[in-house]
């Protein structure tokens, strides 16, 4: 940087310099804030209620720190009234980046798989919007089931599968983890007469 600066400085006399905002004290203050931000990227602020929004914007650098042990994806099933559990296509409900793990459903599963109130909110959301949504299951539903598919990785050097998101693909029993399901009595209540 010093080299770049020295070269630039020698040319300053003959060049016009666009200034930053405001008086010198303001620019120095902004430089101080920049230093604090850069420091916080390395040493994140404490996660207290007041500092949490600021800390959130500095927790950006921890990229792929851990080895993956499984390839994970989340699937949805619904209790079709009078029938049984059937897989649905979650993409009409979560249309942003629908086929990869930046989908809001995949992120939801990752962040909230142990959070009962959040899972119940998902249940309410899907159950309310199912009528009129083309998700692959026709007719009324009594509830939902969120499933985590845990696929072990092959041994290093073995052939690697070409990944393709298929919400209806069969799930091998060993790879299946049921994260949440609408309780039986509630399913019955929502499916009167079936």
């Amino acid at each position, binding site marked *: 940087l010093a080299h770049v600066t020295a070269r*630039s400085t020698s040319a300053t006399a003959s060049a016009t310099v666009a200034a930053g905002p405001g008086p010198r004290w303001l620019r120095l203050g902004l430089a101080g804030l920049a230093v604090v931000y850069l420091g916080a990227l390395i040493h994140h602020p404490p996660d207290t209620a007041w500092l949490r929004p600021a800390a959130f914007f500095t927790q*950006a650098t921890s990229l792929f720190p851990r080895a993956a042990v499984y390839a994970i994806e989340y699937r949805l099933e619904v209790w079709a009234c009078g029938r049984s559990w059937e897989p649905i296509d979650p993409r009409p409900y979560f249309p942003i980046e629908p086929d990869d793990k930046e989908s809001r459903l995949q992120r939801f599963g990752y962040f909230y798989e142990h959070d009962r109130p959040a899972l119940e909110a998902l249940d309410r959301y899907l159950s309310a919007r199912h009528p009129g949504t083309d998700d692959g299951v026709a007719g009324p539903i009594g509830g939902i089931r969120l499933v985590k598919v845990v696929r072990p990785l092959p041994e290093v050097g073995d052939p690697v599968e070409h990944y393709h998101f298929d919400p209806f693909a069969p799930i091998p029993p060993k790879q299946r983890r049921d994260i949440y399901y609408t309780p039986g009595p509630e399913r019955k209540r929502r499916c009167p007469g079936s």
Partner: protein
Amino acid sequence: MPGVVALAGRAGFGPRPIARLAVLRILAPLAILGFLASRIHHADDWLSVAGFRVPAGSDWRQPLSLPALPVWAAWSVAAALIVTGLATAAGAVTRWSAAAFAVLLTYVALADRLSAFTVSKLAPVIALALCLAPSGARYSVDAWRRARRDPSAPRPTLVSGGCVSFFQFLLPVFYFSSGIAKAKGDWLEHRYLLWTQLHDSYQTAVSWLFANHLPPWLWTVIQGAVLAFEVGAPLWFGLRWTRPFALAFGLGMHFMIGLMFGPVIWFSLLMITLLVGSYAPERWLTRAFERLRVPG
């Protein structure tokens, strides 16, 4: 000692070529908008009451619980993001457009944790830095209009203060922090960590091909090189003689990340923008503006 302080002062606050700032102003908002495009396309699902919302207070990690917007307001935010982002890139009413862009980016990052990624967190800071710097002073609609009003007015070739050095420092600090997180994670213990990342929905045709055909030891070599680059970034970018190699390595690394990890391409493009704007040879940038006949 005073000499060292003066040198450090010049390194931090000495004038820089304004072409660097212009490159950052033009390309960074475009990369950010590219990242946001799929969210903006479904703004109602993203920000409004029409989409799924995690209940407030359900997650202690959620930095702020913001209520969902009415559908019309979500579409308005999406439209405003496009307008202010493009205006910032064009350098039109730059300070105001970049300020509005920064505010909107902050809002959307906080509004939906499910859609917040590294780009979401970096973007408001970048937009704010572009707002505070005189980033519309050259190669912009603002500069073009100024020149039309007063053709004899001088056109700045340098920019003062930390306007560019903020970005120049941001990169090595970011890499260093990332490298430390990796070293504290599994990168020093798991020889095939990179290879383990190639099996899920981030997989592309390129990464699938490489996963099947590259010899396993090569993943360990690449992993080691990435870790050494990131942990040593302050040194590689700080020293004059290693800087070109650091730039080349960083560009190559992000190019490969973009090719091999599908949706991460926008993060890669943003980092490539920061690398080029901050560290590419000045004459390349100036020549690019001349060749493209960018007005102002």
